[in-house]
């Protein structure tokens, strides 16, 4: 089953396939209306994107499974090769999306006993409609931007997580997204609710093979962090270099809550992604540690947004960009300390490493502090690889290429050390392949 091109008819078709309730179809149609009204962002990378050629929905026959053996052998092999099946043993639960639909979902029994919900958004809409309705589209509105509106119209798949109050998970939950067809668009919708006094670490992985036609990934992620709760969302996107990765990620943080985005951008043709924290509750805090690596024709436009509303709120943005061989890795971020956010503090630190003269790294910071009782610190550096450092490593017999690699990995050490061990290893492999 495949749906190509964007029209009201196609949106109704997707909704039909999913046997959705009326409120969901209404949301889709309203989003489509907004999509038609909104313009593409007037900043960031330039690329060609013909919305009529994108495949908006594609399903496999299999349906949702909790046993790898029940999946199509080819798909099974693909995920085994990617190391996804193997990584499950480190996790509390895992979801896998292939094209438009979530095909695999499994979670440890002990989490079920704790009443943790980890399933696809479609299942959640059917089984927990009240919970979904309370938060869905409230943190990222479908009027937010053209791509969020597009997601609202055609979303399919994505994870739904609910962590009940007073619950801590020992191991992360993970979702893995895979695009396999050329011209395919993936529009997953993730909704995470960490209720009061709870703790979650969520990990997201993604890949796609390379085709000559562009694929589109336009996801929306909404996260609610309750009082005294903490959520960490780690992702390393490694989309193929033909994927346009245009994603809206935002968290709403209540009193004493903490949100941490650990966000790595290595793949894709162009990425526009600025994970945001809305620090609504007093004493809440937000962190975003982001790296982007751009090579050849890649354009990484990434950063973070921190909106301070509550009193005594703190935020930290650490951004590391690496540009080489004509790549463009830029930081775009916003810190906005509202008048109400007295005694707040924000730190922004952007470092970029430009490896040759064909490459580019710009910074577009917007820092606004609307109260004299709070402050923002901003620090930025641009550097090349130091000759002294290179000479020192080489004086011990390390070839130049390898020495450069060590220095680059060192440059993003602050990011690597935040990743769980097995992802840090995977990241090293990815970077070594890309550098």
């Amino acid at each position: 089953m495949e749906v190509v091109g964007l029209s009201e008819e196609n949106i109704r078709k997707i909704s039909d396939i999913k046997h959705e309730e009326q409120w969901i179809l209404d949301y889709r149609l309203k989003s489509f209306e907004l999509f038609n009204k909104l313009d593409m962002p007037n900043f960031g990378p330039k690329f060609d994107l013909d919305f009529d050629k994108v495949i908006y929905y594609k399903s496999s026959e299999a349906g949702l499974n909790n046993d790898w053996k029940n999946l199509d052998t080819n798909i099974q092999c693909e995920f085994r090769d990617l190391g996804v099946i193997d990584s499950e043993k480190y996790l509390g639960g895992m979801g896998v999306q292939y094209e438009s639909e979530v095909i695999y979902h499994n979670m440890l029994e002990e989490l079920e006993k704790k009443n943790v919900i980890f399933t696809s958004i479609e299942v959640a809409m059917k089984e927990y409609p009240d919970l979904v309705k309370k938060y869905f589209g409230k943190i990222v509105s479908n009027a937010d931007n053209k791509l969020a509106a597009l997601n609202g119209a055609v979303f399919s798949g994505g994870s739904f997580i609910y962590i009940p109050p007073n619950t801590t998970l020992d191991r992360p939950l993970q979702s893995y997204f895979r695009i396999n067809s050329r011209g395919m668009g993936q529009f997953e919708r993730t909704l995470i609710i960490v209720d009061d006094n709870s703790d979650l670490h969520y990990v997201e992985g993604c890949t796609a093979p390379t085709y000559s036609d562009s694929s589109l990934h336009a996801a929306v992620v909404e996260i609610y962090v309750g009082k005294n709760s903490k959520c960490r969302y780690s992702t390393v996107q490694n989309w193929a270099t033909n994927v346009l990765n245009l994603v809206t990620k935002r968290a709403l943080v209540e009193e004493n809550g903490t949100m941490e985005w650990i966000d790595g951008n290595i793949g894709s043709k162009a990425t526009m992604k600025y994970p945001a924290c809305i620090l609504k509750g007093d004493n809440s805090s937000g962190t975003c540690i982001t790296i982007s690596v751009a090579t050849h024709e890649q354009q990484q436009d990434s950063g973070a947004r921190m909106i301070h509303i509550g009193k005594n709120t703190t935020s930290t943005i650490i951004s590391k960009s690496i540009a080489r061989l004509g790549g463009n890795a830029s930081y775009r971020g916003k810190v906005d300390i509202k008048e109400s956010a007295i005694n707040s503090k924000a730190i922004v630190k952007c470092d970029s490493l430009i490896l040759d003269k064909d490459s580019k790294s710009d910074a577009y910071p917007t820092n606004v502090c609307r109260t004299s009782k709070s402050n923002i610190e901003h620090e930025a550096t641009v550097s090349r690889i130091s000759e002294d450092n290179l000479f020192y490593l080489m004086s011990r017999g390390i070839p130049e290429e390898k020495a450069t690699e060590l220095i680059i990995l060192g440059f993003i050490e602050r990011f690597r050390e935040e990743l769980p061990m097995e992802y840090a290893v995977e990241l090293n492999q990815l970077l070594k392949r890309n550098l």
Partner: protein
Amino acid sequence: MLNIKGLNVVVGEKKILNDFNLDIKDGEIHAIMGPNGTGKSTLSKVILGNKNYTVKSGDIKLDGKSILGLSTDEIARRGIFVSFQNPISIEGVQNSEFIKTAINARRENAIGLFEFIKDIKAKASELDFPEEMIHRSINVGASGGERKKNEVLQLELLEPSFIILDELDSGLDIDSLRKVCDGINKYLKEHPKTSVLIITHYPRILEYIKPGFVHMMVCGKIVKTGGYDLAFDIEKRGYSDTSVIGSDSKDE
């Protein structure tokens, strides 16, 4: 065996080494002494093929083969190790990862992680090099003495056949200096064919690692060569007394 013959080196317009000659056979320990800015530290960087220096004429041979024009890493892998005067720090690059990479650059098959960790911990402990610094970024937050110990730790793990110790004693207190020199002497005992070139201002270090040959270097060339005792003559009488060549060299 290292042979340097008629070496002339410049930085930009400035002459740094001036018809420099030196022969060091396997297992010999030599010391070069000289005032500041006489080109002593330049010599070690030139031997390592640092691109900031231009060799105008002359040759440097290691075991009979010229190493001029080779890349720094290639020269290091042929067996030359320089313990630098002011070892730099590199944020984010873990010391153990760095040393392991350097060891593996010399091997067909990568060293086993367990073997490596066992080795590095044992050698660090002999040198009184703090164990937690093994896994920290290279020399970040390290004192001068810790940096020097780190150099010697690398030396012992990389097993060079030709060692240059550039102002080893600067930054080291007397106890640390003894520890470090004990380490080097032990290494030399276990590797008797290894040659050493000590570059120093003061003869103190020569009491711990005793050279058979002492050279006095002034204005980019060796002006006098003698035995161990020359070092103490120089200390007594100063460099200016025997300075025979007038040139306007400044600090390196």
